[in-house]
């Protein structure tokens, strides 16, 4: 089943996005899902397989918060391993994005340039 590069890219950064959101503040699945659904078109339902996976990888842990209305709500927070993963993935992402940008933004070379110019460097 062919997947576009866009889908693959978004899949790749999904974990990073969740880690970054949770680093800002603890959150619950609906909030994470609706943020990411707006931002990168994530299917809302798949937040749960993803969160369970991050939980089994011990990147996040859960706790219950009593809410005034209705049943208590399950919040997620980063573990130390989660913060470590966030740092690692952030720098990986930055390096990747910088590399792609430098290639994409490189000015067009003049036609029939006598020698190769390392414009992308």
């Amino acid at each position, binding site marked *: *089943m062919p*997947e*576009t590069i866009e*889908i693959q890219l*978004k*899949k790749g950064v*999904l974990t990073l996005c969740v880690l970054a959101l949770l680093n800002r503040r603890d959150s*619950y*699945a*609906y*909030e994470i*899902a*609706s943020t990411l*659904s707006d931002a*990168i*078109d*994530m*299917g*809302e*339902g*798949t937040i*749960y*397989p*993803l969160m*369970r*996976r991050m939980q*089994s990888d011990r990147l996040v842990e859960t706790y219950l918060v009593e809410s005034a209305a*209705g*049943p208590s*709500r*399950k919040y997620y927070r980063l573990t130390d391993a989660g913060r470590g993963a966030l740092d690692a993935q952030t720098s990986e992402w930055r390096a990747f994005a910088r590399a792609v940008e430098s290639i994409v933004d490189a000015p067009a070379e003049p036609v029939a340039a006598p020698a190769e110019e390392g414009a992308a460097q």
Partner: protein
Amino acid sequence: MTRAEFMARLKQGLVGLPMTTAAEIASDYESHFEDGVAAGRSEAEVAAALGDPGRLARELRAEAGARRWSQEQSASSAAGAVLGTIGLGALDILVLLPFLSSVLGVLLAILMSGIAVFVAGGFVLVSGPFFGPPGGALAAILLGIGLIGLSVFLIGITAILGKWLVDAVVWFARLHYRVLKPALEPQVQA
């Protein structure tokens, strides 16, 4: 799809998971509906944005299998992880099946020969000395111990290779979670 339909199809897909796990997952999605309705969306909108419940259930089962495998490495948890992966039903996983089953066959053969050598070693060790073997009783005992050692080695190899194999399958399965909208059912814009 209504909330009740979605939950019914999800729960149907989760049959076979441990009760606590299935209940936990169901309550996750129930509260998602409650949050969605509280945010002013209709049940049908929330259900559409969630995606195909059958598909979600298959991914959750695969993930539960993977999680159990990471917690305890046993034959049954390995089977769970592998079956969960196959349940995802991705085309390239199905293509991989013949290869996977031949690797499994080889592992099984090594395991069986390990067990056979173990039994043979035990037999030589216990009864060998009474049959007047060449080299005397001591030689038979040493041969028996040697065979048992060899069999333990073979079984150990199988265990290590088998663990690698299941780890690889789990890793492969996780590449196949369809986490993004376009891969799910056509979505209603919420």
